[in-house]
């Protein structure tokens, strides 16, 4: 458990003045994650909102060493930095203990960066990979990704007369990552800050790769009022839409279990991206989404029991 008084003493590593939107979930996620260690940190980011809005030359919002390379390769890039660190430490050219963290959006992680991530996880680099997951290519104007949920309307899988938006379920990336048998993987939501910081502390503490999939809302893409980011995040957790889980050395666990899961429509109705689902004729899609969530929750319960 993180102590907020202690956390407040950690100097800001991502400063204000960057150009992310007011109410953006990404910067909240980054700041919570960077509270997970007091060691010096080297950060990398994939091309995306976070990188674009925090490093417009000649300005930077990063108070820690930072590298951006391209869209699909932040895991490989950080793996190079982490290896260089080991090589130079062995030579005595570096004496400090340094932590490495890579940030990628869901596009840069679930889709185009998946191979790079898988390679880095398999090689066992000592780094934390954070997917700041806003469930679409928000940076380029809300295109679908494999993290986009069923039924959401995006600009490349829009709702229309013949479509209810994305027909497929989102990819279960956390499980895919866990299948690499890394020491630590978890899902978090910025609404549950203490849960995120605690998971980040664990992720930075393990030896080897750790993965954090943090639901980091985008009010522009999800279409809700910018001041509601935390409220909508909370509903994602309370409805079971985004379960707070962790996989520690192969053991699955809920880190938070809502007393009673609210119906998923409570979450869906807050956002413009699902608005069309509430029109006549789409009730079956809403039922399907609820069923998917119930089934997935049951699947997680089985994993928790089995491990």
């Amino acid at each position: 458990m993180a102590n907020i008084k202690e956390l407040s003493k950690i100097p800001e590593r991502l400063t204000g003045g960057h150009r992310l939107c007011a109410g953006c979930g990404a910067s909240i996620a980054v700041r919570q994650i960077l509270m997970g260690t007091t060691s010096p940190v080297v950060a990398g980011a994939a091309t995306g909102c976070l990188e674009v809005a925090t490093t417009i030359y000649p300005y930077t919002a990063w108070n820690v060493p930072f590298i951006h390379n391209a869209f699909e390769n932040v895991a490989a890039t950080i793996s190079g930095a982490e290896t260089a660190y080991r090589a130079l430490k062995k030579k005595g050219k570096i004496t400090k203990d340094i932590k490495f963290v890579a940030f990628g959006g869901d596009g840069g992680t679930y889709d185009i960066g998946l191979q790079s991530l898988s390679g880095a996880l398999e090689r066992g680099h000592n780094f934390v990979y954070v997917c700041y997951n806003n469930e679409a290519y928000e940076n380029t104007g809300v295109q679908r990704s494999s993290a986009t949920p069923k039924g959401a309307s995006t600009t490349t899988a829009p709702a229309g007369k013949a479509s209810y938006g994305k027909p497929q379920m989102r990819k279960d990336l956390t499980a895919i990552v866990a299948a690499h048998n890394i020491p630590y993987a978890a899902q978090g939501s910025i609404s549950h800050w203490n849960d995120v910081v605690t998971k980040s502390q664990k992720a930075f503490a393990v030896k080897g790769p750790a993965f954090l999939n943090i639901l980091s809302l985008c009010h522009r893409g999800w279409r809700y009022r910018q001041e509601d980011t935390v409220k909508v995040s909370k509903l994602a957790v309370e409805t079971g839409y985004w379960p707070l889980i962790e996989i520690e050395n192969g053991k699955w666990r809920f880190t938070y279990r809502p007393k009673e899961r609210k119906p998923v429509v409570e979450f869906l109705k807050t956002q413009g991206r699902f608005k069309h689902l509430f029109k006549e004729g789409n009730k079956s899609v809403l039922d399907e989404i609820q069923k998917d969530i119930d089934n997935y929750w049951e699947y997680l319960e089985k994993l928790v029991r089995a491990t």
Partner: protein
Amino acid sequence: MMTKKLIALTGDQAAAEAMRQIEPDVVAAYPITPQTEIVMNFSQFAADGRVKTEMIPVESEHSAMSACVGSAASGARTMTATSANGLALMWEIVYITASLRLPIVMPVVNRALSGPINIHCDHSDTMGARDSGWIQIYCENAQEVYENIIVAVKIAEHKKILLPVMVCQDGFITSHAVEGISIFPDDKVKKFIGEYTPEHSLLDVENPVTYGPLDLQDFYFEHKRQEAEAMKSALKTIPAVLAEFNKTFDKSHDLVEEYKLSDAEVAIVVLSSTAGTAKGVVDELRKKGVKAGLLKPKFFRPFPKARITKALSNLKAVAVLDRSDSFSGEGGPLFSEIKAALYESEKRPPVIDYIFGLGGRDIFPEDIKKVYKDLQEIKKTKKIKSPVNYLGIRE
């Protein structure tokens, strides 16, 4: 006189041997034919504890170059190696490496770029990367591969240059043929290249630097201008580095190699291993009284224009042998650049192009003799019937 060791090595092994002596901090590489033996041999050196290098056995060439960027930005001396489709897969990051001014040295074993798929030699892979901001050195034989990789480290890391370098050798022809290679003593190589101490490092947590920021209309142009200037001024700095290398190791490296060119009337311009074959033809023709010569550009990037113009402008006819096509309909890339270089010259010899050896098609002394014969005809008639020709092909 320094003690030299003569050992039998292939071009790939010679590259690995140079890397063993350089002993980079980090090597991130992915195997691809015909580069594979470089990675295999070097991995064995690491496994046997003969180098302290940290290996990153990446899952693709894209990740190889990406990891190299992370490593080099962290202040580690970093190398990789590739061929053909592997270079194509890392393409995006090849440009980023140069723009970040990271002094990564990469042996490239030239191989035909798909499609159709083919594993044998031509220059379509690195010729495509000629505008990526990398220095390119082309090697005639395994000895040159060995020496150029060592000097490439010094060139790449030179404070006035700071650009990545490709050291290119012909796939299979050089990479898999065994030659007697003269090896320098380890300590002498290490002393020559020295320690790598970059001005900035990603691992300098006390002085955090942001690498790879978003660079828009305000500054992108200035940064690309700086990159262009770095390459241009490298042409002035490289000869000094080569001179230091020559002095240390008793060698005679230069930007270009002129072979029997001073009194020549006709000459061929060709890169890499084919220059060796052509030199034999020149010797034969000289015995018959033909004033034949050869120009082998060793550096293609930066393009040593002044040296090339000076070497060629007094000739009566010049043939360029291109081991890749540009599909412009106007010949290969070497041809275009040689012609452009001569445009500003007061004396402009007629220049003819021969595209040859694509996909590893062998080139024989007879083919090269035919080119010199054509040149003598051009010398006589001062006319070129067909500016772009294909050599050693069924048509």
